[in-house]
């Protein structure tokens, strides 16, 4: 069982740059062909300020920490034993190329199932842009295989 005393723990916040080239690379990696995600003129014509980040991109910002997935070290989880259980996003404003997004992350639950064979860690993240606007929130569940 993972250490439940970390329920309520807030990981150090950090700020991530939303780079235009990164958005284009991400679009390529997911097979996105709608030009609003790669061509600034197309994005502006569609009513966006510049290239918008696709709906799941906030999770990419989560990875922009000096140490990959700091939660793993914190809770002594083995990276080879984690699975993604669930993921939710709530959107308030677009995330755009050029934005600087501050990510905060809080552990909101830790529990086990199947007699301790699986541990679950739930985190809630918030994403705030350089203007101080909350642009998105997310909830993630990670599963750690113990046996």
């Amino acid at each position, binding site marked *: 069982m993972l250490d439940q005393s970390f329920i309520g723990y807030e990981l150090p916040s950090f700020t991530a740059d939303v780079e235009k080239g*990164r958005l284009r*690379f*991400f679009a*390529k*990696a*997911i*097979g*996105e062909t*709608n030009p609003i995600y790669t061509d600034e003129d197309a994005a502006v014509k*569609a*009513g*966006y300020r510049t290239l*918008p980040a*696709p*709906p*799941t991109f906030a*999770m*990419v910002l989560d*990875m*922009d920490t000096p140490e*990959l*997935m700091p939660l793993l070290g914190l809770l002594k989880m*083995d*990276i*080879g*034993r*984690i*699975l*993604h*259980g*669930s*993921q*939710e*996003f*709530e*959107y308030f404003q*677009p995330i755009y190329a050029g934005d600087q997004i501050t990510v905060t992350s809080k552990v909101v639950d830790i529990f086990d199932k199947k007699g301790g064979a699986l541990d679950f860690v739930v985190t809630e993240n918030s994403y705030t842009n350089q203007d101080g606007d909350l642009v998105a929130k997310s*909830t993630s*569940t990670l599963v750690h*295989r113990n046996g």
Partner: protein
Amino acid sequence: MSDIQVGTEIPALELPPISRCTLALYGGASGDHNPIHIDSDFAKAAGMPDVFAHGMLSMAYLGRMLTNWQPQAKLRKFGNRFAAITQLQDVITCSGKVVELIEENGEKLARCEIQAVNAEGTQTLLGEALVAL
């Protein structure tokens, strides 16, 4: 957007088979450098048959399906659970439909059930999206 009713189907999105190259590109682009998705030796040592797809890759496919259907600016909520692992060479199809029209904070929204399914019919992702009308 009065053409969106309960029962309206979101146009499905069928993906090419998941290759090792797909996973390498997604690992690099997403910043998820967990070797379990790109290094077969690591995956086998961790007790898996081989590398397998990032759940977030399939969620990104569901996102493509949603934004192909409606502009992203209308997407209010989007979530899913990862019900089964997506393996190499799986052919994933994303689909969904409107199940309810609701009002939240004075805004009319379509609640959509969405899913990703492999060629054997196993549901790999199951979730929900709220889209403004």
